[in-house]
């Protein structure tokens, strides 16, 4: 495996690993790790570093919705152009072009249901290319970013074994 891939595998599991620890885990030296991270960022492989948050456990937390959006394209307007316009809204947390019954899957983050509804009906639906939206509010999140949301770990192994 090349150095960038090894560093990426570590960061994808835990973006808070510091350079020395990544070096120790990959067997690279610290300078090589720093170079790999610079390269990953420069090539836009790594776009940022964020916490995996369970918003349900935060006072005044946020609500999340997955919105299906159908669009109609014309000669001047392609998916890229529409995506660019939708992505500019700060409430849009993630935006994917998908195969299947609709075109875009949009993850929207808002203060509450009303906030999200208003955003969809007042900002997204009126866009000329948008023909239809279907909003699914997320009721409960069980796993996100590869991490299962549960209380602590339950290591029930014997503390010392042969």
């Amino acid at each position, binding site marked *: 495996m090349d150095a960038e891939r090894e560093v990426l595998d*570590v960061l994808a599991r835990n973006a808070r690993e510091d350079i020395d*620890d990544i070096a120790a885990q990959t067997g690279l030296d610290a300078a090589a790790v720093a170079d790999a991270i610079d390269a990953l960022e420069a090539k836009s492989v790594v776009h940022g570093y964020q916490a995996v948050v369970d918003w349900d456990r935060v006072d005044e937390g946020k609500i999340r919705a997955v919105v299906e959006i159908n669009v109609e394209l014309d000669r001047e307007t392609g998916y890229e152009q529409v995506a660019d316009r939708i992505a500019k809204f700060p409430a849009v947390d993630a935006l994917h072009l998908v195969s299947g019954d609709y075109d875009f899957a949009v993850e929207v983050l808002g203060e509450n249901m009303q906030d999200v509804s208003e955003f969809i009906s007042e900002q997204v639906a009126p866009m000329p290319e948008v023909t239809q939206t279907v909003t699914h509010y997320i009721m409960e999140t069980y796993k996100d970013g590869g991490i299962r949301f549960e209380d602590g770990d339950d290591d029930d*192994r014997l*503390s*010392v*074994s*042969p």
Partner: protein
Amino acid sequence: MRLSDRARTLPESGIRKFFELAEARDDVISLGVGEPDFSAPWAARTAAIDSLERGKTSYTSNRGMAALRERIADHHERYDQSYEPESEVLVTTGASEAVDLAFRALVDPGDTVAVHEPTYISYGPGIELAGGEQLTVPTRAEDDFALTRESLEAAGAAEADLLVLCYPNNPTGATMTDEELAEVAAFCRDEDLRVVADEIYAALTYGADHNSIATQPGMRERTVVVNGFSKAYAMTGLRLGYALGPAEAIDGMNRIHQYTMLSAPTTPQYAAIEALDRCDDEVTEMVDEYNRRRRLVVSRFNEMGLDTFEPGGAFYAFPDCGGDDEAFAEALLEAEGVAVVPGSVFGEGGEGHLRVSYATSMRELKEATDRIASFVEGR
């Protein structure tokens, strides 16, 4: 009730004491665990559940389900091993049963069995129960705990009838290269030793594939290979192992197995079929994660001045603690709440070393090694 001499005289495991010391506290980070911190792959677990729902709760054939034996034989082609599923594979209740059966089938009262030390703690008692006598062959830190022809000769192993070989090794994490195994194989051929090769950690090697002594010229016919699902597939509690060997050895082992065990448990056999069919990727992910932890742990111990060679397999590092390993481990547990296992538990050759298991989360490994570093600094 009156106990047999056998039961009364079998020594208490040295690991027991550390288990009790560690259990007495509730703030312990344990690097003393000899099993994976992962759970068995979900696909394997659902196959077990599914088999129960379908009422598959009867005995299997003595030798294990035919479908499982076929897959085991296929699986071992990756180690260049080739065994007939019909006659050369025996599914057992954990690799432990396979080791016990091998001793009982291959050792006559008074036979000498050479065992390299430090090593896993069950061989000595198993040999004793089979009526054999253990001959200890020390492996050395300067050889990174690989077994050498020189050590075998020095210990007088030429007189032995059987050799037990455990690589990748518990507790040292040592592996052996093909060249190193060739030397040991030549010794076994020259001195007519049979071999029980416990290769339970074969899937957990880093940077190089596992080498089996059974693939050395002339060794297949004199070797019983023991392996299982516990370590590779993180299913220690499901108790499923197996032995591979020439038909006469497997026949002999099965003759004992059919009376003492009848058959290995059925539910785990379904899990194992699924594990072999579908869980390679998950094993690779576990191995990659162990590898990252291994490098971190080894580099941290070397940084704090406890010399640690680079272990090529299993999930143990074996740092040199520079003195009395038992005293070190007890004081470390007392002062910092970190449990490790003193190397001497695994035989005299382990003295002055600690078995550090990295089958625990990266976060705990960092916390534990920080605490050990501060303990070492304060000494």
